[in-house]
């Protein structure tokens, strides 16, 4: 865990945000992240983020559920305890479809949510640095990572000229830590590293 220096620009309209993202990236700055109050469609492409593969994970969890159900039920009903139910076949596949389907959905949903929480590093008692309290309300907060060559004042001016209503420079922890939101505890030492 280490602290870094960031320049923060706040926008109040996504219409101003998109051209600004484009200009900041063309100018060669590294955008750490953009924090938005809701899912702004197309922003992930504008930032050059790759598509998420969460749905692929969901598919894998799903077929795991299907095969768990099929293998367990068929083992139980044909090998472990073959029960004669009115002389019907022991391997009664059509009757197992409902449970196979339910377990597919259950595994896929639970697996995807847990994966989502893990890859986003979200969970109860997780605390992260918030660059602006209104990022979950009505501001679109662009955070640019500083290098030792970055001229902070120039960058802030550049953001303002591109529609940022508020700019700021913050030294912040980029990871998460265990904490609650009612106090400002920071269990880490204030060691700052500068990316070359």
């Amino acid at each position: 865990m280490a602290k870094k220096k960031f320049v923060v620009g706040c926008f109040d309209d996504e219409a101003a945000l998109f051209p600004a993202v484009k200009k900041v990236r063309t100018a060669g700055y590294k955008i750490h992240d953009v924090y938005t109050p809701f899912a702004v469609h197309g922003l992930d492409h504008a930032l050059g983020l790759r598509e998420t593969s969460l749905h692929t994970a969901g598919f894998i969890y799903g077929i795991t559920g299907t095969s768990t159900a099929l293998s367990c039920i068929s083992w139980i009903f044909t090998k472990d305890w073959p029960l004669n139910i009115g002389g019907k076949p022991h391997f009664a596949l059509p009757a197992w479809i409902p449970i196979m389907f339910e377990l597919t959905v259950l595994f896929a949903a639970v697996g995807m949510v847990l994966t989502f929480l893990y890859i986003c590093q979200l969970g109860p008692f997780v605390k992260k640095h918030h660059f602006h309290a209104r990022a979950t309300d009505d501001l679109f907060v662009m955070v640019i990572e500083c290098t030792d060559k970055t001229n902070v004042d120039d960058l802030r001016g550049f953001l303002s000229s591109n529609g940022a209503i508020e700019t700021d420079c913050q030294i912040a922890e980029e990871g998460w830590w265990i904490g609650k939101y009612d106090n400002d505890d920071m269990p880490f030492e204030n060691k700052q590293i500068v990316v070359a």
Partner: protein
Amino acid sequence: MHLKYESQLREPLVYGDKTYKQVTEDIVRPIEAKPTKLWYIGFYIAVALLMFGVYSVYREVTYGIGQWNLNKTVGWGWDITNFVWWVGIGHAGTLISAILLLFRQGWRTGVNRAAEAMTIFAVMCAGQFPIFHMGRVWMAFFVLPYPNTRGPLWVNFNSPLLWDVFAISTYFTVSLLFWYSGLIPDFATVRDRAFTKLRKKLYGVASFGWTGSTKHWQRHESLSLVLAGLSTPLVLSVHTIVSFDFATSVIPGWHTTIFPPYFVAGAIFSGFAMVQTLMIIVRKVFGMEDYVTIGHIEAMNKVIVLTGSIVGIAYLTELFMGWYSQNKYEGYTFWYSRAYLFSPYGWSYWGMMACNVLSPQIFWFRKMRRNIFVTFFMSIIVNIGMWFERFVIIVTSLYRDYLPSSWSVYYSPTIWEIGFYAGTFGLFFTCFFLFAKYFPVIAIAEIKYVLKTTGEGYKNQMAGIEEQPLEDFVHQHAH
């Protein structure tokens, strides 16, 4: 920047020229304000009902199932009726959030959060009935397949009753995950505005440290979409499997192939009615008429008239098949026990017909669909009708079976059966009152997402653009 456009023919989903800030303030206000007197009164009534239910269940557990009036042939009475009724109500939430998400119906954003909450609470209520119907409730874990010391004696995987265990528990889990994953960003909104320490702490824990990062939003969108895709067949499967409990038996009146679609339509029908009942109260009490607009209510009334008519066709099909099959038992059940008004339970069949099939037809008229009082009244009528439907299916098929000597006396519930049902109302409304006070009842982030395309202010702006000459438009917007 993409220029989003939505037809002027569609009415706005959010009234008033609102900013993002106003949306947050409007929706978070009930959480930050002290609850009103009305809230306390409602909450205490709900808790009192819940206590009565707890006592009724206590008697049932202590003295056994004999506390209920179930008898030799009517082995399923109010308990299973109430189970199916609550499960049916629990269908609208996931339908609204999943199927309408896949169909890209923008109006779902105003009502999905409350509808999903309703789903979860309704399924919680539903689950009580089969569990306590077991009698020896401390043995309830026997329904789970696990390697045990009794053989191992496994559950019967070919039985619809076991499918039900899997279906209902999966449905509850998936609905809960779907609901909570949508709540995380909104909890973060509440957390970041909180001015009391306790609220900051609690919503901080509940929001899982959400920041609003673009990458997280991208994954969140993907998660919602896949969960919606999974929930859509799930919601259809759950009531299908509930209907299998009846349809795979050989009881006249239950042994019907149309049960799955008929039950699913009925579930959506009653679920939307319950959403109407709750949303009409919530929008009034919390002043959210701008978000749950009359357009939302009209859209739901359209679903009600559609599904009500599907259910009506199913009733008529059953009557037709009762005659067409020329099976004496089928004919007796459908034409005597049900459709004959002066048979012992004829009143329940015609009550069902009046509430479910005839009365919703007034929603063919736009004026009626957009009338709050008519909608509220009808939503209650529909839920009474749907309760009658399940009662008709269960009791009229059971009280006179193949052997006249075992025909039962007239089945009517004991006070403890009624108390159990009242108790689930208590549970449902206790949960709903707490939800309405402590949770954002409308999905804040989703409203903000549709605000720029469907809000009233932006609609007006678009109307201005439409009147522009083409040359000016191209000049302004082409890059």
